[in-house]
């Protein structure tokens, strides 16, 4: 396939054009706005499908496309300052593009049902199109700078959509909170970009990879720490902000104030996943900077803590929000323990089932006109299709075998177990154990949610009677069913556990593991000899013939820490062990967790309130979300920042204003008096008036020349010609 600007750019441009056209039409013809948005994203989906099919048919880890055009070039001689923008598509990008466009298409279609008749619902599509184009642009970007730009556009869209119902005060506050909290991470992200620029001189991924492979980061330090560590940390701070990791996770639950489709698209499937995507892109840097342990801790803590909070939530969407934070924590944990491939796979699978869950929750909320689970119950008779879709996704997120969530999450847990037991680094044991506890809690709160919503007796008869029975509708539950099909694990992996308890013979079913290879070790060295291609050129990177041993040689790309010499027989063996043990452990954990949920909410053997009352302080902590909001607002902002501000204000008005500025003013006043005298006496009366008088006298002499008689001028002209020719002639 020949990649030109016409085959790549529409992915980004179609939603963007939809946005621009909608900007024009939103006042005049608001009816067509949703359809333009849907057309834009579906068109982008087809282009993305074509690219994915091409990559899938090539089926080679080394295959990528990197096309650039020059954006800024103010190089002057030796001083080179050049910024290229471009497109970098490798296998990961292709998968990501397919996921984003597909999920976004379905969410757009769902929104046309969900938002219909809502206030400003055309504007909702406007933001949705802008957001989608920014996300696709981020995925396509070949460098950190444009990633950052699209990142900020997405932040703006997130802000606008969270505060979509800005009549409600909480919505406005929530949007502000989300924007401000992610900003903390963004500042670090920008610092990280600058740090990388200072070393590499360029910010596009292949150049960074090549520089890392050449060892450009070795030996450089900043603030007493390695520059690689510093820049990796800064980039990862962007991830913390955007992906709502500990300690900046506080904004995501509040972000549920926005419309549900936007929660599905932004706060479940794409934007928060973009943070993880960024960390995956920066994986070589993290590896070189030896930040794995830190990241694993962050991920483990997030996965565990959010899961605990999710258990007691009453709001349907809040449960999903905390489960999102928890699952994002798993992805980050995956990055920390070195399972690059599994983390990315979890990103994709999570995006699909969590988008479906959110859409299903939206369907429930919109049909039932309530959002608290305490008012629900027994809805499976009223909403059968939603019920089916939601069950599929719940099984997937719970990690039940044969579903996608099991495949991806289990591989992360297996790698964590390997790092804990076999790698010999004891510090990894805490994140791993937290991850396993989270894996125990996840099925419990998800099943609890399902039982409270769809099963048992109904708890609000009036609303229940008022709710219509659901029919199959193309823009309500068909998108849910389509998404729920893709929660089956078979689409992502031939084997149903991390490392293959049940193997399927066909090689291509293992595509996900084979194609997405971590850019470390050998995978990094290939960037040493890469060349940029302009957009007009035909893609020249031919693929080496696919070797039959590809399956085996790349089988363990998800291996914890490629640096640990994965060719070592012993390590290989250990890894197998760890994965088998991890799979068995997680299956057992899931079974116990599900049984507990059944015991509590279906059979009634145990009363949840008993535990609720018993664990007093713990419950109090969970209820207050581990006091993070209290800490940020009351301690950091009110006690810290506000007092600092007050002090600075006092300093400004009391010291600086009074002494520096007023004193300077007094001095100036005397100077002005002196200069005023000088001006009046010397300048005005002597210089200015004198000049004027002189000019007047001179003009009296010269104005007789300007007589107004044209012919006199001509005579002067001729005389001048004669004189000039005299000079020329001699």
């Amino acid at each position, binding site marked *: 396939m020949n990649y030109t600007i016409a085959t790549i750019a529409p992915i980004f441009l179609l939603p963007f054009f939809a946005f621009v056209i909608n900007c024009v039409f939103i006042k005049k013809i608001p009816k067509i706005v949703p359809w333009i948005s849907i057309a834009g994203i579906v068109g982008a989906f087809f282009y993305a499908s074509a690219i994915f099919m091409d990559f899938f048919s090539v089926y080679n880890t080394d295959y990528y496309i990197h096309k650039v055009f020059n954006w800024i070039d103010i190089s002057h001689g030796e001083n080179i300052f050049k910024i290229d923008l471009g497109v970098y598509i490798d296998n990961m990008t292709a998968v990501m593009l397919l996921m984003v466009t597909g999920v976004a298409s379905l969410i757009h279609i769902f929104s046309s049902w969900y938002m219909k008749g809502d206030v400003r619902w055309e504007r909702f599509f406007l933001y949705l199109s802008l957001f989608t184009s920014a996300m696709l642009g981020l995925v396509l970007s070949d460098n950190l700078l444009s990633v950052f730009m699209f990142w900020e556009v997405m932040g703006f869209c997130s802000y606008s959509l969270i505060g979509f119902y800005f009549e409600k005060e909480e919505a406005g506050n929530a949007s502000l909170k989300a924007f401000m909290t992610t900003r903390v991470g963004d500042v670090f992200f920008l610092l990280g970009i600058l740090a990388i620029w200072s070393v590499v001189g360029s910010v596009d991924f292949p150049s960074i990879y090549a520089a890392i492979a050449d060892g450009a980061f070795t030996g450089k330090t900043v603030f007493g720490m390695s520059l690689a560590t510093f820049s990796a940390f800064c980039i990862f701070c962007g991830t913390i902000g955007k992906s709502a990791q500990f300690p900046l996770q506080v904004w995501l639950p509040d972000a549920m104030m926005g419309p549900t489709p936007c929660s599905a698209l932004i706060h479940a499937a794409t934007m928060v996943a973009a943070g993880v995507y960024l960390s995956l892109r920066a994986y070589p840097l993290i590896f070189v900077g030896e930040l794995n342990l830190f990241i694993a801790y962050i991920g483990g803590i997030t996965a565990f803590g959010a899961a605990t909070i999710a258990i007691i939530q009453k709001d349907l969407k809040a449960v999903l929000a905390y489960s999102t934070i928890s699952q994002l924590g798993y992805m980050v944990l995956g990055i920390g323990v070195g399972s690059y491939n599994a983390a990315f796979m979890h990103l994709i699978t999570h995006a699909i089932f969590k988008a479906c869950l959110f859409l299903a929750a939206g369907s429930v909320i919109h049909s039932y006109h309530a959002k608290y689970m305490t008012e629900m119950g027994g809805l499976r008779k009223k909403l059968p299709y939603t019920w089916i879709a939601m069950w599929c996704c719940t099984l997937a997120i719970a990690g039940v075998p044969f579903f996608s969530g099991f495949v991806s999450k289990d591989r992360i847990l297996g790698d964590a177990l390997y790092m804990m037991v076999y790698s010999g680094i004891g510090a990894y044991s805490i994140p791993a154990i937290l991850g396993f506890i989270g894996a125990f809690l996840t099925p419990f709160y998800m099943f609890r949610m399902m039982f409270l919503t769809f099963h048992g007796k109904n708890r609000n008869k009036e609303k229940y009677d008022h709710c219509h029975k659901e029919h199959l509708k193309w823009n309500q539950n068909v998108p849910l069913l389509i998404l729920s099909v893709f929660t089956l694990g078979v689409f992502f992996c031939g084997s149903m556990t991390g490392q293959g308890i049940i193997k399927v013979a066909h090689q291509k079913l293992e595509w996900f593991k084979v194609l997405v290879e971590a850019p470390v070790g050998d995978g990094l060295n290939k960037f040493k000899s890469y060349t940029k291609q302009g957009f007009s050129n035909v893609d020249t990177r031919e693929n080496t013939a696919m070797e039959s041993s590809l399956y085996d040689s790349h089988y363990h790309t998800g291996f914890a820490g490629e640096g640990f010499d994965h060719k070592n027989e012993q390590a290989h063996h250990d890894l197998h062990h760890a994965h088998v043990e991890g799979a068995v452990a997680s299956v057992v954990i899931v079974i116990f967790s599900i049984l507990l949920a059944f015991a509590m909410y279906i059979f009634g053997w145990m009363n949840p309130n008993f535990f609720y009352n018993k664990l007093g302080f713990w419950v109090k902590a969970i209820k207050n979300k581990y006091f993070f909001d209290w800490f940020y607002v009351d301690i950091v902002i009110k006690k810290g920042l506000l007092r600092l501000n007050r002090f600075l204000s006092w300093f400004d008005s009391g010291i600086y204003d009074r002494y520096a500025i007023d004193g300077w003013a007094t001095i100036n006043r005397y100077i002005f008096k002196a200069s005023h005298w000088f001006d009046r006496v010397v300048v005005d009366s002597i210089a200015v008036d004198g000049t004027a008088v002189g000019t007047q006298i001179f003009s009296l002499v010269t*104005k007789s020349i*300007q*007589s*107004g*008689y*044209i*012919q006199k001028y*001509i*005579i002067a002209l*001729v005389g001048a010609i004669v004189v000039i020719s005299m000079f020329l002639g001699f």
Partner: protein
Amino acid sequence: MITLKAYLFISLVLFVTGLVVMLSRKNIIAILLGIELILNAAALNFVAYSKYTAANLDGHIFALFIIVIAAAEAAVGLAIVIRFFQVKESVHIDEASDLREELTR
């Protein structure tokens, strides 16, 4: 044979005639006539030099542009004259001195 100097002489005659017409007449249109003569003299010089000294046709190009500019100048100039006539009801050149300071002497 005809030499360059013959053309230059004719050109000089044209130029001087134009000059005299411009200087001696008080009608604005007559002055425009003089300008046309002077422009023709210049164009003739260009073409003559082009033939006798240079091997290219740049002189012809210059002559063409002079003709173009003369046409534009005549159009705009005559339009101004007619407008002037509408306002002042005269085409005397000395009437066109509104912007001059009134001389008391």
